[in-house]
């Protein structure tokens, strides 16, 4: 499982992953349609903002915010935990362990390879967003767009690491699907997915800003809709990558501890 092997195998893994994403494109489309929550929330908040703006959000700002939310979730989404759970439970993880590439790298490659398809399916929404909102609802600063790209990468990393981490929890719990359920609840509420973070009551907001969820969705969306100036965006970016680092460390630990418990049932 040397690094050299992984690097050599990575392009192939990506190709395989991409072929997989293309093969299941209908399925993927359904997954996309299933993430309609931002649009529902958009309809809801629009009704609320019809009479008067909420905080700094009028109808146009809500439109920009939730369309951006949709795109960010699409691009950074990952469901690898499901595959890991499956592999641990029915023992097929043993096959992956036999390969000369670390399974977690392989899973990461799969997730990464799905990205082009994800971008393709979220493109129409992005275009619609651009038509509806125009440049008014988005930042004009190229620097902030650059920050946005990095924040998207960070958000993807956090989501992937959470997936790997919870996937690895299956070593200890037999099935960690419920853990993911619990995570998702917190994620939906505290990430800015349903409610922009700055509409939270002040005290709750202070707590939420320290949690990782906000860096998964809210932060990139806020950057692209121009909620932060350069300094604030960079500070938040540092916070985001601190969570990425923490996630990497935790995943490595849990994987190592979990693998020791792994007994391939069946196989």
């Amino acid at each position: 499982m040397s690094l050299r092997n992984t690097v050599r195998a990575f392009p192939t893994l990506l190709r395989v992953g991409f072929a997989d994403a293309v093969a299941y494109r209908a399925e993927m489309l359904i997954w996309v349609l299933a993430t309609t929550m931002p649009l529902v929330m958009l309809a809801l908040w629009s009704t609320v903002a019809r009479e008067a703006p909420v905080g700094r959000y009028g109808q146009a700002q809500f439109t920009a915010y939730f369309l951006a939310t949709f795109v960010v979730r699409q691009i950074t989404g990952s469901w690898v935990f499901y595959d890991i759970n499956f592999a641990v439970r029915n023992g097929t993880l043993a096959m992956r362990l036999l390969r000369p590439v670390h399974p977690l790298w392989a899973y990461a490659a799969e997730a990464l390879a799905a990205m082009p398809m994800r971008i393709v399916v979220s493109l129409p929404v992005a275009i619609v967003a651009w038509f509806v909102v125009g440049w008014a609802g988005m930042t004009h600063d190229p620097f902030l767009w650059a920050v946005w790209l990095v924040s998207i990468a960070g958000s993807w990393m956090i989501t992937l690491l959470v997936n790997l981490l919870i996937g690895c929890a299956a070593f200890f719990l037999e099935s960690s699907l419920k853990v993911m359920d619990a995570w998702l609840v917190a994620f939906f509420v505290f990430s800015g997915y349903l409610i922009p973070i700055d509409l939270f009551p002040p005290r709750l907001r202070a707590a939420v800003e320290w949690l990782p969820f906000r860096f998964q969705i809210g932060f990139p969306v806020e950057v692209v809709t121009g909620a932060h100036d350069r300094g604030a965006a960079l500070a938040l970016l540092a916070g985001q990558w601190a969570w990425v680092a923490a996630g990497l460390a935790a995943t490595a630990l849990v994987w190592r501890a979990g693998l020791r418990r792994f007994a391939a049932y069946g196989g």
Partner: protein
Amino acid sequence: MAGEPLPTSTPPSGRTSREPSRARATAVASRYARYARLLRTQIRASLLLGLQYRADFVLDATVNVFWTGAAILPLVIVFQSRASIAGWSFGEALMVTGWFTFLEGVLDGAINPSVADVVDHVRKGTLDFVLLKPADAQFLVSTTRLQPWRATNVLSAVAIFAWGFHLLGRAPTPGAVGLATLSMLAAVAVLYSLKTLAVSAAFYFVRVDNLTHLFDSVFDAARWPSNIFRGVVSVVFTFVIPLALMTTYPAEALLGSLPIRSLFGALGGAVVALTLSRAVWNRAIAHYTSAGG
């Protein structure tokens, strides 16, 4: 069950209409008794199965409480800035949330697990074993995987109703509770029918776990009063997936503001949905060719 006669999908007495109606009535009654007994057995089996995974249970209960809180937090925040939205006050909107919590319990506790089961059966070809059993296949698959723990949702729902009525400063009338119950029955029937339709799709497309996921994500919008939504969204929520019927009607009934016409509409819709989904299920079963392991 070995001593029982092999049942056919229609009672034998149904074939000739001249037979004495009392014989037919007895046949129907014994059929119901048999299914009631079967249901009891299924629930007991589900309970025992649930008891096997105690860690899951604890987590499940925690997630439940979480979910209920999560359902309410956006509501609280939305209503922070307004006293009423689209004609709903906070207390009134809580009724919708309450019914949503209840219905979610039904969905996750009784409907979704069996859906997942059928999809699995179809993919692996093990549905044969269900079809071979001497009982109605739809009944069997709908009752095999009950999750009695989801009853906690009912408690949460009651707590939410209590909070809502406390804010409104009144209590529901017995009549309103009755109408709300009726309207909830219609909602459950429609929900079950929609899920049955989704499951029937499994016989044609094999992989529909995503379809049910899609449904669940749309269903999530039911936690909001339906008239908040306008335009395309509201059309979808009225005709494709009647969310209004599922949570807003029962909430209005509980508040005593549901037009009786809407209630009859809901009940009629429920009967139509049940009949239609049953027909589609039967067709789908006939289409099933067994994937062969």
